[in-house]
């Protein structure tokens, strides 16, 4: 992979850029207004803002009656997302290794099973999951929804990790074994560092999907104490009595900021999900 693609001497890139710019212009305008509208007021029917205001961001320091505090919700979201990421990373990095390298009984069955689970539309399970959680007392709790979300995302993680483990040369493991290390030490000290980019990528990926998850928390943890940002956002729009479109937009911007930060700093690692392997 080259770091920067060189500009070709034979073809000018200007027409392409112009075309792409034109096509993505509506998106840019929408994003611009999304941010602009959160800090301004404009006359009804006008597109030009006439007044700067911070009243739409009031939700940051004022809790509205009947709503939970934005900071509690944000904390919930962080706990939810980080736990999911942790569980997925821990389980898939181990399970992927086992499926890739160890001679376990019914390995083929597990591989096929993981594949099927990955392809399975998880929404169809939601009623039975609801009943199960209610039955074991984890309904309306963060733990319950964390477990469910992590379990649903796990097959992709396992499959991805297995693919990365497959690229680690056998000789490294043989050398480790001969050097006297146990199989677990070999995995942790020798093999895991080889797939660090994949771990980073899967971690980010899980974080992003966890952050944007809506259906599962909405159904399984709707209570105000365990609300996450996506559910909070939806409750704003569902509230017909104090309908406030600008606040909705402001919360949306607030919600998307961590994602943007992650993308800015880690997009290099996210690209790694497509091309990995060992580098010296």
């Amino acid at each position, binding site marked *: 992979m080259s770091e920067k693609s060189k500009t070709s001497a034979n073809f000018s890139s200007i027409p392409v850029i112009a075309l792409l710019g034109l096509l993505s212009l509506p998106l840019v305008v929408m994003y611009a207004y999304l941010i602009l509208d959160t800090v301004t007021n404009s006359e009804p029917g006008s597109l030009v803002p006439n007044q700067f205001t911070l009243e739409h961001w009031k939700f940051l320091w004022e809790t509205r009656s009947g709503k939970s505090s934005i900071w509690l919700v944000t904390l919930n979201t962080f706990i939810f997302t980080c736990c999911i990421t942790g569980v997925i990373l821990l389980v898939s990095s181990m399970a992927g290794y086992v499926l890739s390298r160890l001679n376990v009984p019914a390995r083929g069955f597990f591989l096929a099973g993981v594949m099927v689970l990955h392809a399975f539309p998880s929404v169809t399970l939601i009623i039975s999951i609801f009943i199960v959680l209610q039955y074991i007392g984890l309904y309306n709790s963060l733990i319950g929804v964390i477990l469910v979300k992590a379990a649903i995302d796990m097959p992709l993680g396992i499959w991805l990790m297995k693919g990365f483990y497959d690229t680690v040369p056998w000789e490294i493991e043989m050398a480790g*074994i*001969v*050097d006297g290390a146990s199989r677990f*030490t070999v995995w942790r000290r*020798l093999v895991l560092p080889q797939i660090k980019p994949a771990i980073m990528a899967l971690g980010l990926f899980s974080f992003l999907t966890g952050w944007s998850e809506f259906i599962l928390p909405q159904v399984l943890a709707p209570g105000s104490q365990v609300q996450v940002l996506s559910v909070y956002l939806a409750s704003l729009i569902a509230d017909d009595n104090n309908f406030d479109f600008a606040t909705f937009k402001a919360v949306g911007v607030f919600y998307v900021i961590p994602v943007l930060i992650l993308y800015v700093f880690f997009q290099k690692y996210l690209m790694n999900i497509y091309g990995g392997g060992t580098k*010296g």
Partner: protein
Amino acid sequence: MRILLDKFSKSFGTTSVIEDMNLEVGSGEMLALLGPSGCGKSTTLFAICGIHRPTSGRILFGDKDVTNLPSQERNVGVVFQSYALYPHMTVEENIGFPLTVRRVTAAEIKKQVAAIAALVHIDNLLDRKPSQLSGGQQQRVALARALIRRPDVLLLDEPLANLDAKLRLEMRSEIRRLQKETGITAILVTHDQVEAMSMCDRIAIMKSGEIVQIATPSQMYQDPRTAFVAGFLGNPPISFLKGKAAQGAFVSTDGKLQMTLPALSGIADGTVLTLGIRPEHFGTAGDIPVEGRIAFAETQGRENLYDVLLPDGSVLRSIQPVRDDVKLGDQVRWGIDSRSAFVFAENGQRL
């Protein structure tokens, strides 16, 4: 330490790779397992270091039966063909890894790493990562890592295959020097007969899972047991002529070449034979004259190599001190040294 393979067999599923192999390597000896690819030499090596479990038979280090011991409990050092250095660790961490997993104190590791690095001449590279090293340096790191915990056996799996020609020459003598200095028992797996002959005390030559012959390099060169061994050792390789036995002599297929050989007394007339002649035994000095046309000539600086096409279509190779008077296509009459010729029966056994 002495290593003994006793009726060692290994099969993968239904494919049997090695059956009932017996092999003894003396203490402090360096033995080469030489053979074409797929002959089971690497399988043997991996069985000795414990990566493969033998299907049957025993493996002994000294008097200790290690057949069922896992790799971690056998004290073996292995240098892999690809070196298998750990890419995320520095040279120092790589070499020290076998000690780290044994929970040796950090100060002790540092001391031992410094000592072994000095022995293999890489003490100035300890802070680098493997990717910042040349092939020869990586090779030395792999050697140091294999040697640091004073293994009972050093196993080398084609250690020179990835080096360029000049480095290969250098590392050949370097590995031999280290093996002699440490007095360690070593087994070298290779398909290169030059490596095997130049580095090892004895050579075990393998073919499809069996040891065909085991002897010192010079014995094996001068006294090959089968046509396969004769054909494998020597560069440029030996050339073979087809023929039959007639009254204690070898007669070529077209009858033009007759050679009385002591080995053929008592062999029935008409027995199908193969005559093996090394390039250095065919030239201006030999006692049995042969006529042919030069089909190929190559100069190697000090010597010239010629392929002589005989009238019946077979080819004899000759290596001679450099001379300018013979050119491609010339008709020559050179001699075979009949005392140095080998004669083999149809099944490849030497007579």
